[in-house]
């Protein structure tokens, strides 16, 4: 058996591989663990990283392109960057590799900038807070059924940011927590009360068609559920208020 095409990354000269890998990590939305990283590097123009069965790891391994090779490259990048007093390093933490500032320059940047950091909420954050705002009280499974992805980290992050809080427990199996928005959320989004949220009617103008009906169904279901929960959880409610 022969490799049909060498994956693009491995076809680059070694020096370019190093620079490209640093640039790749710069553009990533999350830390990459070695498996995922290997998948991306081994993918070809003809097969994306998600069609992993097509990737011929064994053949790549035979010509020396395996995980250890990639780990070595990462070490070399870090050594080069250290030798040349570059401010970036590849760090393995939080479940994978990501590009961060070196300790030295991290410290220097900390001294230069002691200010309020301006950020944007990520789309995932914005979407999740929107769902919680419109559908509260809503459980994590409820949020996930709309987003279609695991939302544990996101919800916890929103709680840390002070935009979301636990407002009760559902009587659905497993008694998941129910989440709602906080006063901080209202302030951040310039709303006085939840009543100020744009109405579904306005959503219609935005091009809701079939999806709107799905939204309605969800909402009606939730409202019924909510009523029940409210009745049962009046006392619970107070426990979670700050």
């Amino acid at each position, binding site marked *: 058996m022969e490799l049909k095409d060498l994956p693009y990354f491995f076809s680059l000269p070694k020096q370019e591989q190093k620079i490209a890998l640093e640039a790749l990590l710069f553009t*990533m939305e999350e830390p990459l663990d070695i498996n995922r990283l290997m998948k991306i590097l081994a993918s070809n123009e003809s097969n994306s990283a998600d069609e992993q069965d097509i990737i011929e790891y064994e053949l790549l391994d035979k010509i020396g392109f395996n995980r250890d090779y990639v780990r070595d490259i990462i070490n070399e990048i870090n050594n080069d960057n250290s030798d040349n007093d570059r401010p970036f390093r590849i760090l393995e933490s939080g479940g994978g590799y990501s590009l961060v500032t070196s300790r030295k320059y991290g410290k220097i940047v900390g001294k230069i900038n002691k200010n309020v950091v301006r*950020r944007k909420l990520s789309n995932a954050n914005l979407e999740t807070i*929107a769902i919680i705002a419109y559908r509260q009280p809503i459980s994590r499974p409820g949020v996930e059924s709309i987003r279609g992805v695991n939302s544990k980290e996101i919800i916890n992050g929103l709680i840390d940011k002070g935009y979301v809080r636990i407002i009760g427990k559902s009587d659905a199996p497993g008694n998941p927590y129910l989440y709602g928005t906080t006063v901080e959320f209202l302030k951040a*989004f*310039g*709303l006085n009360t939840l009543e*100020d949220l744009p109405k579904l009617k306005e959503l219609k103008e*935005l091009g809701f068609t079939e999806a709107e009906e799905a939204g309605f169904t969800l909402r009606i279901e939730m409202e019924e559920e909510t009523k029940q929960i409210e009745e049962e959880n009046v006392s619970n409610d107070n426990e979670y208020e700050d």
Partner: protein
Amino acid sequence: MYRIHLPNFEGPFDLLLYFIRRDELDIYDIPISRITEEFLSYVRVMKLLDLELAGEFILMASTLMYIKARLLLPKPKDENGDEIEDPRTELVQKLLEYKQIKEATEDMRISEENNLNYHERNYFGNDESAEVVYTNTTMFDLLTAFKTAVDRLDNAVQEHVVELIPISVEEQKEELVKIVNMKGRIKFLDFMKDKPKAFIVVTFLALLELIRSQELFITQDDLFEDIIISPTLNLN
């Protein structure tokens, strides 16, 4: 087999600008008859090829025919005896405005291309030690995010939604033939007057088909303001 190349025009203005450029016409003095003819044949070709024919093209066809008809009349004067403005003025302004944007679009395409490979950093970790202000927190940002989420939820089953017009072209063909045969002849613009857009679109499509299949016949009296629809003369 013919291989037919039809450029994909963004809309009726785009198509008209194409004719104007191709034939080196003066945009401020558009020969309406000629361009209406061109436009209608394009529309007919689209129809013959069973291409999805946007209502906007039909609407433009009737606008052109309307302007053409008005130009044939003696120029009306207002109470001061001044000539009322050229019926083409509004169309010309729209065409110019569209052309203005279209030319800007070319520059934008180049800038887009030039910036395609600048990528930002996307992962900033969870360092929340510093005080953070979020800059994308408006009511509308929230609304948009919610819409995106719910849209996606339904995306799997969502199909292309076609706006339903309460009358079909087939029905309207029958209706037109019936009316024309009963009345002998009808005036096109009269017939379309005050009707909803969907009705006009469907009627126009029906009319085009009837003309093509020679079930109806249109004439235009130079002295007259409207197009006249009449039954085809049966020569047998």
